[in-house]
């Protein structure tokens, strides 16, 4: 009799302990989820809320980015490039230094403009509020947004006037920083390393082809182009050049890159007038003459 009661009490206490710990665990995860659902986004005067973003995410985004934001939606297997995994908190289009979180505006701009040469459409027909809410919900997937602040925004000085000297100097930057190793000497994405590129998830990836004349991955203006190579596209082979390019040189490079595109830009006219030949990769092996 006594033995049995001991057994029972042991069992009971074990059950209580188990239930208690389970409850604690459940509470912790639930707390975490609730905390994360408090996520907000701030874009100008707009404030987005993750709770309002959730139904929108389920309506618009879930097919590719998946119910838990890991980029494994039902269509992910058919898509190349693959949808972004939001749980990692790593984003290509940022105004912030490599390795830091993007600002809310960066994410807002990205869903508004879509990502060229991928399945990500331009979502700007959605209302501003909807996009802000979506950003809050996208941020809720990654614990990084709860722990870290976005990096400091890259300051871009006003664009100087396009001159012959600048286009020429831009070519020198292009040669010296060896953009051509991947993007090719004429910007056709056929540099010596172009075929070997993989992203951080070991998936093959192509460099941007300037000759296509499409928008860039993160925008279409000169400032967007400036920002792209200065901050780099995280999780891709495209590095940040912010440490080694002065703003003047960066603008020079922008102007030279514009001359590689098929559009009739002033930069292209200058390159034509100067008779600018594509750089000679072998000459690039010589030490810098600057």
């Amino acid at each position, binding site marked *: 009799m006594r033995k049995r009661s001991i057994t029972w009490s042991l069992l009971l206490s074990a059950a209580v302990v188990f239930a208690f710990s389970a409850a604690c665990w459940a509470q912790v995860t639930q707390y975490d989820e609730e905390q994360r659902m408090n996520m907000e986004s701030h874009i100008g005067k707009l404030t987005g809320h993750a709770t309002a973003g959730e139904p929108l995410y389920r309506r618009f985004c879930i097919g590719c980015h998946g119910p838990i934001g890991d980029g494994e939606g039902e269509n992910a297997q058919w898509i190349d490039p693959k949808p972004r995994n939001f749980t990692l908190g790593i984003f290509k289009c940022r105004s912030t230094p490599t390795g830091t979180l993007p600002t809310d505006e960066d994410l807002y701009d990205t869903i508004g403009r879509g990502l060229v040469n991928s399945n990500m459409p331009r979502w700007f027909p959605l209302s501003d509020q909807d996009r802000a809410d979506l950003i809050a919900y996208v941020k809720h997937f990654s614990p990084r947004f709860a722990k870290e602040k976005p990096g400091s925004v890259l300051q871009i000085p006003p664009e100087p006037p396009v001159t012959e000297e600048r286009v020429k100097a831009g070519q020198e930057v292009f040669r*010296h920083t060896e953009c051509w190793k991947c993007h090719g000497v004429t910007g056709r994405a056929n540099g010596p390393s172009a075929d070997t*590129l993989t992203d951080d998830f070991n998936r093959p990836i192509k460099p941007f082809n300037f000759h296509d004349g499409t928008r860039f991955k993160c925008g279409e203006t000169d400032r967007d182009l400036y920002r792209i190579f200065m901050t*780099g596209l995280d999780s891709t*082979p495209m*590095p940040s*050049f912010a*440490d*080694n390019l002065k703003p003047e040189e960066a603008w020079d490079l922008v102007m030279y890159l514009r001359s590689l595109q098929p559009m009739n830009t002033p930069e292209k006219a200058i390159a034509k007038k100067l008779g600018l030949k594509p750089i000679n990769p072998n000459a690039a092996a010589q030490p810098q003459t600057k």
Partner: protein
Amino acid sequence: MKTVYKPAAILAVLVVVALGLLSTGRHVSAASEGKVTGSIKLEGTAPHMRAIDMSKDPTCSKQHSTPVHLENVVVGSGGSLANVVVYISQGLPASAAAAVPSKPIEWDQKGCMYQPHVAGMDVGQQLKVINSDPTTHNIHPMPQPGGGNIGWNKSQPQGSPPFTTSWKAEEVAIPVKCNIHPWMHGYMVVVKGPYGVSDESGSFSLDNVPPGSYTLTAWHETYGTQTQKVTVTAGKPATVNFTFKAK
């Protein structure tokens, strides 16, 4: 005025004294700290390491008169295994784990290879990234996503000054690659507390290990990890040897 001065002066004296005590204390403890040494061996035949074709970038190939080989397994004479990082994975007191060496780790890009190919480093230890090559490299460490470290990707054109950075969290190991030169890859092994990296002769040494019982872990990029228990006493180096088996 005087009343303000006085406490400030006392405080300054106290700080100086405290600092002095602290530094002597460290010296004292350093003298009483132990050491772990040992060597790493590879049992069996080491896999063939393919020669690297650097012809796509003449600035790289020109620097080597003889072909350079991949460094996934680097074996010295008598089967000694290089590039194994040995560190204390269990038992380290918090104070020893928190100590960070002041000397920066150098990570050089030379001859379009990483030197070293595997670097050990402490959490928060300065990491100095150097480009000695007449070409542009992009240095692209890729920590496990979702962990405490965040990856980045920076271009370092020829002639750029070195830059320093550090890692926030333990991670064994962070792969590093240069996308421009796809053969360039290496590992940064970020740990807390003393660590050693085996050289070509297979030998390693962990300095400034306080006396105590520990679990040592040896990590190799191809052969994974091994662990051993070790007891360290002051003034007498403990010896631990690891043997990896070739697959």
